[in-house]
């Protein structure tokens, strides 16, 4: 889906990049303040003005009514209370639960696990055929193109019109009545997750294929000589050895889900009704269509808070430089 690893996610962190590994002899002994300031100044100004200051502003605005984006009336936790009692945001009183936040949970569970599962299977199986690079390139193509284009491609596939929608045309050939993939509130989220999976499997395949190939050939060969069968080799050797890349990939995909917007906006606009909204869509809708800036800020803060544990995880991993 577009380029899934949003510029914002370290796909993984090489061991040698950890701080402990490189504390040694980089740069001359004497600190050079002037050079440091000159080289860092452009980045520092942009990060302070366009990232840090707005983030603080948004956190404060979430405790305000924030009409027109300015601080007009402090309301305490009111925005958050309203947000979490809004059934369109999260509704746990029904089964299954519903609401934008719940849809993100559905995405995290199904999208993340299926992308990793398919990516690993394709990486391992394609490695056994001569046309491996072709298969990898084919599943990777959706990564290069915009989520907006993916949305159009799949609007065609899902169309209920028998002359447009390939999926319903195939079902029709077996005598099944057309299904409204994007018009049925019980199906729409899974139809969208399917598009997300289609868009991201290539990324998982490329990452996991590199990881699988880094396993020394001798290790696998000696296991074969000892009489291990293919299944044992996969579950007892390959899987444990790629568990770290899998966890990094899982984190990347979860971050993708939390930031997911373009695909939903173009394909369903959160519909039918409000059935396929996700948190980033709700933020946009509340702030820019309903004009509720304070309330919209609260949604943005929820996004930030959900991402903070992952931030801490990244910083920790990096500080220790421990990857293996």
């Amino acid at each position, binding site marked *: 889906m577009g380029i899934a690893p949003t510029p914002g996610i370290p796909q993984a962190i090489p061991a040698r*990049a950890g701080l402990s590994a490189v504390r040694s002899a980089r740069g001359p002994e004497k600190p050079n303040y002037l050079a440091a300031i000159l080289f860092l100044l452009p980045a520092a100004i942009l*990060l302070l003005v366009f990232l840090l200051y707005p*983030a603080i502003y948004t956190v404060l605005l979430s405790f305000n009514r924030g009409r027109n984006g300015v601080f007009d009336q402090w309301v305490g936790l009111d925005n958050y209370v309203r947000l979490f009692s809004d059934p369109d945001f999260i509704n746990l009183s029904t089964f299954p639960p519903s609401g934008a936040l719940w849809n993100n949970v559905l995405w995290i569970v199904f999208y993340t696990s299926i992308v990793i599962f398919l990516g690993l299977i394709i990486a391992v199986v394609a490695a056994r055929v001569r046309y491996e690079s072709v298969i990898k390139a084919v599943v990777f193509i959706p990564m290069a*193109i*915009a989520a*907006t284009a993916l949305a159009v491609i799949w609007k*065609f596939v899902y169309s209920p019109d028998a*002359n447009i929608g390939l999926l319903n045309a195939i079902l029709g050939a077996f005598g099944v009545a057309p299904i409204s993939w994007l018009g049925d509130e019980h199906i729409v989220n899974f139809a969208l997750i399917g598009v997300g999976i*289609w868009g991201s499997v290539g990324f998982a395949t490329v990452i996991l294929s590199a990881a699988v190939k880094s396993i020394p050939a001798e290790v696998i060969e000696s296991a074969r000589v000892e009489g291990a069968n293919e299944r044992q080799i996969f579950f007892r050797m390959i899987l444990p050895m790629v568990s770290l890349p899998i966890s990094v990939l899982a984190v990347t995909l979860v971050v993708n889900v939390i930031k997911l917007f373009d695909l939903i906006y173009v394909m369903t606009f959160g519909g039918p009704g409000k059935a396929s909204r996700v948190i980033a869509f709700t933020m946009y809708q509340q702030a820019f269509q309903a004009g509720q800036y304070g309330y919209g800020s609260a949604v943005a803060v929820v996004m930030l808070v959900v991402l903070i544990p992952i931030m801490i995880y990244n910083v920790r991993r990096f500080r220790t430089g421990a990857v293996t």
Partner: protein
Amino acid sequence: MSVLAAAPMAGSRPRTPAGRVVAALNRSVIHVALGLIGVIWLVPTLGLLVTSFRPRSDIQATGWWDIFQLHLTLDNYRQVLEAQGMLQAFMNTVFIAVPSTLLPLAICALAAFAFSWIRFPFRDTLFLIVIAFLLVPVQVAFIPLLTMSRDLLPDLQLTRGYGAIWLAHTAFALPFGIFLLRNFFITLPPDMIEAARIDGASDFRVFSTIVVPVSVPAIAAYGIFQFLWVWNDLLMALVFVQDTSKAPMTRAIQNLLSQYGTEWHLLAAGAFLLMIVPLIVFFSLQRYFVQGLLAGSIK
């Protein structure tokens, strides 16, 4: 060399005829499964491509998979480029994407050099802050930046032109770019840099004549990544480009969709125009592209 590429079911070659049949079946299962995957990943895009060349009346009469009804035309492209303003939108996308790629490249390279080859207090702490910034969602910046450009800098009219979107894309690209380039810069041999310093080269000279030239692959990989990211973006363009005549292709296609939801001939041609540049970049620079994705990945 790949472990698993080594001959299908390698190791114990089956000795009995029955064993050989089983092995061949296993192999054909693999080919069928991979073939199916190839079909599932190609056909939807292929359908869009074929549809974009079919006349409107044909699209409504039969499915694109009906190869007996194949008349090709460029009318859809002509119509979407001219009447629907997609040519202007294409140019707008270029105007947005080029500065939004070059600016972060330059700024990230400078900062990454400081984080790798200049000594200053709190260098490591500041770098950890950059890593924390990696995950700050753009949503937290929307309202303050719009308010700021409206109230503090009304004369600049940042959201009327491209100023706001260039700066927003650049700022939110920095953490990733600095991270990626710094991780590459620190792998350069220290001797090379120290030797230049002993010869009296200034930091900027070391940066511009040594570090940047030898880092071209890493810089290119990041540049491609950032370029495609901006090219494909819809969300930032929705928020920061308020003059509709300056909106990029992603927004133009979204407009087509909401105005004429069932004008499939226009949608298909428009979506393909949006995809064409990323596809060219992908197929011609695949090596850099995959490197960019794997950059900093597991070795």
